């Protein structure tokens, strides 16, 4: 241990190989990117609530995008593209897999660090490089990428239609892919190879099962995205025709491309991006599965069922990608196949939800802030999941495709699911990470405000979608049939501003508690897994001596014992 103490500030906090510092670096970076992504959404909500209204001070920030403070359509396209890209690639994935994956895996399996600490450091430092590359698009000729976070060619594949911002976007995503793959190699190797004595797979906390499955998905899906991005970059830079068919005319000129298939991009892209949806939800499911037993003071209901349902979701997740493509002109027979495989995902998901409810049933529930977020996760995720069944059904999707129904669905899954899961994780592990507790009353107020305003913004989206309002639309009032949605949109925008403002309370609580919070002690929540046996924050190297694991991860309210919890290493 002594050698670790001699490290200077730079080696200790900036170019650190300690998994905990790297996890915290991912946490801070992704929170900053999420705040930025949220601000992009606020601009979009401004335009949707008050189409064409001027925001004079925005002219200074984006002179080309908002001349005189009035948004131009191209800028709106950049906003939804970058909002999606930043939130998914630099917000949700890094906070769930990057921050918590790094922080929790070695602690919870009983290892001193990751299998490859230096590779881990590289994985983190590729992340800001990737983000800078993507965001540099805002400062180049023609602005940032504007073809949606899905970047469908031919729009995204031609220099004539998308400027250098799109090239930077694709290059940045490739770099991020490297970062994810290096992280995933580390996570999988650590879970397989660095478990403490006695820590069999069936004694791993569910969060580790979830992060492990996520890492396997990342490992196998990300390289396919990298391949697709590289082909797109070649189309853009060397004039190849992978995704570009013959006969395209831009500005009256016939382009020389021939033979490519735009739909091939969609297959490759969704082969990654559908598993990515599970990459963004499985860890949150894992955190909730750790939090519910702790605050119900009961062993988890159906440990094996929950653990293997994560694996099942991961496996089936590779066979469902083309449900994003029912309307793409793909063979309809294939559509039926993908409809069925997608519906199958509901089975392991249902197993999880009912096991969570079983865990809560007749527990002695403690409504702490992390518990509230966990319950928020379950309820919001159910809405997200059920609306997903509408979209998975081919005939229904024909009507809903590319409407606000899809936007509502994705936000119930990614905000209602992943972000409430992330809030649950932050508020639960904050005392372990920083040695101090967050303020509970402020935390609860933040939860209720977020929960309220989130539903006010996102739930009406289902109505908009049913009413035929398309997504990615700059000014819906140009369609007479949609004008009557103006009032609803305005209400949603006001709720969105309140939702953003509510996050200030979280930011304040986070920063205040970092320095002034109550001292946490080793085990403030009276939980059972290995990380709660270390000091808060744990030292470099984690455990004073290698823990020997004697029992499963959720031993609460064991009959005949004085305390109502039993640590994984505790003798009878």
């Amino acid at each position: 241990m002594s050698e670790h103490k001699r490290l200077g500030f730079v080696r200790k906090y900036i170019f650190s190989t300690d998994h905990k510092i790297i996890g915290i670096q991912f946490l801070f970076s992704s929170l900053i990117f999420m705040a930025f992504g949220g601000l992009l959404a606020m601009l979009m909500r401004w335009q949707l609530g008050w189409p064409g209204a001027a925001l004079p001070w925005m002219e200074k920030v984006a002179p080309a995008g908002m001349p005189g403070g009035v948004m131009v359509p191209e800028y709106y396209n950049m906003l939804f593209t970058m909002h999606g890209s930043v939130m998914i690639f630099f917000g949700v994935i890094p906070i769930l897999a990057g921050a918590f994956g790094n922080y929790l895996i070695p602690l919870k399996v009983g290892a001193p660090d990751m299998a490859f600490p230096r590779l881990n450091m590289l994985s983190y430092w590729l992340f800001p490089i990737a983000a800078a590359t993507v965001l540099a698009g805002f400062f180049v000729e023609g602005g940032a990428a504007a073809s949606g976070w899905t970047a469908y060619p031919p729009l995204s594949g031609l220099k004539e239609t998308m400027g250098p911002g799109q090239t930077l976007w694709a290059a940045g995503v490739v770099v991020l892919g490297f970062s994810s793959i290096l992280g995933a190699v580390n996570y999988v190797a650590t879970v397989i190879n660095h478990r403490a004595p006695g820590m069999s797979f069936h004694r791993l906390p569910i969060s580790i099962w979830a992060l492990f499955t996520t890492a396997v998905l990342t490992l196998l899906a990300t390289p396919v995205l990298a391949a697709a991005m590289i082909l797109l970059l070649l189309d853009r830079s060397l004039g190849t025709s992978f995704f570009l068919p013959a006969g395209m005319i831009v500005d009256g000129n016939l382009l020389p491309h021939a033979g490519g298939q735009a739909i091939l991009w969609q297959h490759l892209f969704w082969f990654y991006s559908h598993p990515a949806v599970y990459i963004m939800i499985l860890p949150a499911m894992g955190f909730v599965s750790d939090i519910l037993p702790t605050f119900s003071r009961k062993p988890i209901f159906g440990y094996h069922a929950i653990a293997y349902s994560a694996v099942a979701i991961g496996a089936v997740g590779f066979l469902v990608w083309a449900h994003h493509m029912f309307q793409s002109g793909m063979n309809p027979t294939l559509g039926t196949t993908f409809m069925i495989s997608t519906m199958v995902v509901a089975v392991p998901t249902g197993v999880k939800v009912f096991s969570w409810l079983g865990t809560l049933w007749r527990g002695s529930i403690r409504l702490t802030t992390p518990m509230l977020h966990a319950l928020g996760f379950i309820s919001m995720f159910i809405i997200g999941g059920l609306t997903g069944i509408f979209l998975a059904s081919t005939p229904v999707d024909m009507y809903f495709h590319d409407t606000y129904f899809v936007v509502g669905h994705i936000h119930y899954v990614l905000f209602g699911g992943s972000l409430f899961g992330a809030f649950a994780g932050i508020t639960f592990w904050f005392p372990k990470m920083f040695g101090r507790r967050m303020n509970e009353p402020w935390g609860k107020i933040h939860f209720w405000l977020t929960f309220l305003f989130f539903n006010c913004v996102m739930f009406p989206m289902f109505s908009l979608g049913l009413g035929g309002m398309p997504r990615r639309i700059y000014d819906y009032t140009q369609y007479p049939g949609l004008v009557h949605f103006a009032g609803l949109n305005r209400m949603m925008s006001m709720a969105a501003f309140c939702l953003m403002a509510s996050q200030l309370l979280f930011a304040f609580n986070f920063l205040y508690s970092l320095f002034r919070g109550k001292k946490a002690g080793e085990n403030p929540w009276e939980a059972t897994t290995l990380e709660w046996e270390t000091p808060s924050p744990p030292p470099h190297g984690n455990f004073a001596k290698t823990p020997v694991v004697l029992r499963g991860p959720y031993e609460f309210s064991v009959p005949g014992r004085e305390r109502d919890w039993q640590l994984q290493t505790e003798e009878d």
Partner: protein
Amino acid sequence: MSAGADNGQATSTGIPSAKLGMWLFLASEVMFFAGLIGATIVLRAGLTHWPHPGEELSIPIAALNTFILLSSSMTMAMGVAAVHHQDVKRLRLFLTLTILLGSAFLGVKGYEYSLKFAHGHFPGTALFWDCYFTLTGFHGIHVLAGVIANLWVLSLTFRPDFLRAKGHIVEISGLYWHFVDLVWIFLFPLLYLI
């Protein structure tokens, strides 16, 4: 590979972490090439014209290159065997041969490229050439990376006590090298023979 937390210590499975890490990385690499090869197959199925075997590309040159690369896999395997026999001289010999054969493969590939360039075939001239240059190009980059990795391993063998302390690195580098070889076994028929 960077030093694992378990360097020299027992792991949960008994498999060294560095070796496990290489297998995981290779799983990822398999998916990368699966994406590129899958794209080529799909694009070819959608085209009315694709060159017949031997029409555009030289089968004899590629067959020679296949022979060179397969031989290099054999010398690599003999290098790994030399580690097991604790014979550092044989290890250096077979590593050198592997590096030379890998470089020869790249030389032949470069010659083949120059022939295509001379005929005006570049990426962007036709979809067949887009696929050809992308697949063989990314494979070539991987061969180059393997040659550099083996050069690094060769330099390590001159350190005292290499075989006992770091001998497992040869096996890990070998895993990567065999993978690179295996990718070519798929590319050769895909681009040249069918």
